[in-house]
Each structure stands twice: as C-alpha cells, then as structure tokens.
C-alpha cells in the first residue's frame, strides 16, 4: 500500500473531522495556558482546506498536502497557522509519487524540520515539536523495520499521543504559554495535542 492521492485527501478530511470534533477540547487546553483559540483556529483552517480540496484537480498526494498547507497559512493565523501550514507544504514538497512507508517517513521529517525552522522550538519547549518529534522517530523506525503504512502510522500516532501527554510536566519556553513561566507546568500543550490528532487520523485512514 502506497500513500497516494485519495489517501492524502482522506487524511486531510479526517483531520478536519477530528479537529471539528475536538475543537472545544483544544480550546479548553489553550485557555488554560494560552489564549483560548487553538480549537477555533484549526477548525477554521481545516474547514477551508476542505473547500480548497473540492476545487482541486491534484496531480498527486504531494499537491494535496501542499494545497492544504497553503490554505492553512492563508486561513488560520496565530502560531499554529504558519507552523502547520509550513509543515504540510514541506511534507507535500518532499513526497514522491508513489510514496511508500520510507518515503512518507522522510516527508513527515521534512514537515518537522519546517516547523522547527520557523518556530525555533527545541524538544522539551512544550510545543507541537514535542509530539511531532517522537511521531517521526516512531514512523521512521517502523518503516525501517519493514512495517507497512498502517503499522508505521499507528506507531507514529501512539508516539505523538505519548509526546502530547509528556508535555504536561514541562514548563513552556516557546509560544504564548511561555509567558506563564512555572504556571504552565501541569497542563497539556494544545498544539502537541492537535499534532497527536494529525498522526492518529493518518493511522486511521491508512488502516481503513
């Protein structure tokens, strides 16, 4: 099984559905240590990606993800808009067609690189990076071990979810939560949580 155009479209649609469903939870997490808009930011952005995909004649899975990224940049704003936007654009740009597990692993890694280039966050800063980093590592390892897309994606999702949970005891050093200093400790990072949704939906659509 390869990561192809229908799968790329299904992934974006699944993220949009998951964000819609988890919107209030993401916003609640962001209210605790941010400004209470992460849910509505992503909801607005991924809703726009659906409209963008509807009008698209994609030339491959990369084009789908690039379009999604561009749309996120244009519609989300905030910190998460440019970060997720650049990530999906980078994944799209790095994605060969057809893409097997190893190629997708590298594309996802390119996404992480884009996030880190723009946001300058290190692992442990309590950001998106804390879910994305272990997810890419797990995906890579699984792919190297010969796993198929569904297994690699499932491993990545689990790692991302664990990474999101692991942000709880951290003190934020980047993004709005950093303003809270020690008061940011004890809360799960909203961006890491939405990144876990991104990888969980990838596992779901590849397993379907």
């Amino acid at each position, binding site marked *: 099984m390869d990561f192809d155009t229908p799968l790329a479209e299904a992934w974006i649609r699944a993220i949009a559905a998951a964000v819609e469903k988890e919107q209030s939870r993401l*916003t609640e997490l962001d*209210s*605790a*240590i*941010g*400004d*209470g*808009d992460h*849910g*509505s*930011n992503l909801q*607005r952005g991924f809703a726009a990606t659906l409209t963008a995909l509807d009008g698209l004649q994609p030339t491959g899975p990369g084009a789908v993800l690039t379009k999604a990224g561009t749309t996120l*940049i*244009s*519609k*989300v*704003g*905030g*910190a*998460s*808009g*440019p*970060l997720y936007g650049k990530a999906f654009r980078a994944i799209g740009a790095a994605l060969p067609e057809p893409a097997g597990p190893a190629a997708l692993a590298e594309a996802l890694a390119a996404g992480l690189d884009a996030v880190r280039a*723009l*946001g300058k966050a290190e692992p442990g800063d309590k950001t998106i990076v804390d879910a994305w980093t272990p997810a890419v590592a797990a995906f890579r390892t699984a792919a190297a071990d010969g796993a198929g897309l569904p297994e690699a994606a499932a491993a990545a999702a689990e790692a991302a979810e664990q990474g999101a949970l692991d942000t709880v005891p951290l003190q934020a*050093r*980047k*993004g*709005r*939560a*950093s*303003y*809270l*200093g020690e*008061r940011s400790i004890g809360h799960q990072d909203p961006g890491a949580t939405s990144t876990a949704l991104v990888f969980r939906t990838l596992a779901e659509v590849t397993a379907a």
Partner: protein
Amino acid sequence: MKKLINTPESVLEDALAGVAAAHPELAVDIPNRVITRADRPAGPKVALISGGGSGHEPLHGGFVGPGMLDAACPGEVFTSPVPDQMLAAAKAVESGAGVVFIVKNYTGDVMNFELAAELAAEEGLEVRTVLVNDDVAVEDSTWTAGRRGTGATVLVEKTAGALAERGAPLDEVAALGERVNAASRSFAIALTAATVPAAGKPGFDLPEDEIEVGVGIHGEPGRRREKLRPARDLAAEVVDTILTDHHLTPGDEVIALLNGLGATPLLELYVVYGEVAARLAERGITVARSLVGNYVTSLDMAGFSLTLTKADTQLLELWDAPVDTPALKRA
C-alpha cells in the same frame, strides 16, 4: 457568555462592516480584512502597516490615518492575521518608499508577518520589521518567546507615523520605531479575564477578591495571582516594577500611557492615573506627556496597563505632531 454579536464566527466581519460604516475616512476591504486610509498620501512616503489579533480595539484599525498607520490587518479575535492580509495591505499602500511592518512580539504575529515579508519581497517590495516587546511581566530571554508587545505599540505607531509623514526614509523610520520600543516598558494588572466569543467563557477564573498581576492582552493568565489592593498600592507596584527594569533615574522625562483593558470605567482609570502620577513624582520622574484611556484593550477584561517611554526632544516632538485617526487625533 453575553456579547453584542451576531455569531462568534462572524464577529470580525461584522465589526469591520461597522468600522466601514462609521469611518468614511477609512477604506475597509472586508473580504481581505485590510483597513487603509481612504485618502492617498501625496508623494512617496514610507508606508506603516500593523496588525494583530482582533479584540484589542482601537488597536490597530483605530490608528489608521494621516500621521500614524497607513494600513491595519486585523486577525480573528486574539489570533494573529494571516500573511495574505499583510501582503494585500502592503500592495495597497506602498507608494515607492518602502514598507514598515510594526509587529507585536507574539509567536503567531512574528511568524505570520515573517511569511508576509517573504512574499512582499518576492513581489519586489522593500520591507522592514519593527518588533515591539515592552512587557516587563515576561522574562526577557533568547531561550523563550521573549517579551510580549503591548502598550508601546501605540507609541511606536504614533512616532514612526509622524516621522514617515515628514518624508523620512525607510531605514530611519524603522530605526525610530526600534528606538521607541527600546525606550518603552509596560506592565498590566487584570481584575477579570476576557471572554473570547468562540470560547464562550472567560479565559481564566478569578475569585471576587483576586487579581492577575503581569497579565497579557490575550486572556493569558498573569505571572501570579494576589488579593485586590487599593489603587494606590497597585499603581505604586506597577510604577516601581517598570522603573526597576527600565533603569530610569530621577530627572528623567517619560511619556505615560495609562491604558484601560476594555471593561474598566474611565473613572477608575483616572483614579489609577492619579496614583501613578503621584508615585512617579515621588520617584523623581517627570511626566512630559500622558494619555489615559482605552487604547490596547483585551475585549471585556477589566484592569489596566501602564507604559512608560523615556522621552527626549525628538520623541516629544513626534508625539505632539498632528495625527488624524479614529482613536487618536491631534491638531
């Protein structure tokens, strides 16, 4: 949540319709979310563009006009605008002398303006960025997101706007903006949290007798929580906190902005300002100019921020220069 809105989703668009109706002197591009001066500056002039999340009105749209901003890009509530807005604004108001982006230091604002600057450069526009980071409540460190931009934005936009209006070149205008930012420090105290329409409830819960000290303008909680005290004590603490960080010494002159966070009655702001002025006098600091009112708000948050900008002849002269915007006018 009790708000004068139609739906949480349409707040920005609906408010822009109101801005357009209320201010014929502004041109409001609702689909692109860009507010510009309806008139065009006569010759080439450095174009000043600012923007940021909505919910801080009159910042930034209320400061568009002769002598201040050329364009403002309002994002969703408490969410930085997207690069497309700044690009559209830059294309609309650039008149051959380059563009200055005035950006409050928040991760989202910084990144979105950065992407916009890249896009504008691709289109051949010369762009400088002035970062505003005046909030002493936040630790200033290269390892973190750094200090937030708050009240100093008004000072930067006003003085840089005045300088641009006089025909100063791009680098000079940008340098002045950076100088004013460096000369400014702010600190805020909140009595209540703001309620973002889409969230539907206050960003944090504050008991009837407690305040958030060192709060931000996005409903982020502050650095610590304590009991409400008399205005005199709060004013003294805020002044002292700023002076300590700012290394101001007796004899120094400042421009003081006492800013309401949105739901603070003007009567209370004046009470606080009286105490601020008294404390500054005690500390030997002269207030050369002052401004008291709602300028950088946080929706329905009750509380205040104080900004002190070390003044000198040039800054005072630029501060006093004519300006004609919805929220700041001077003959």
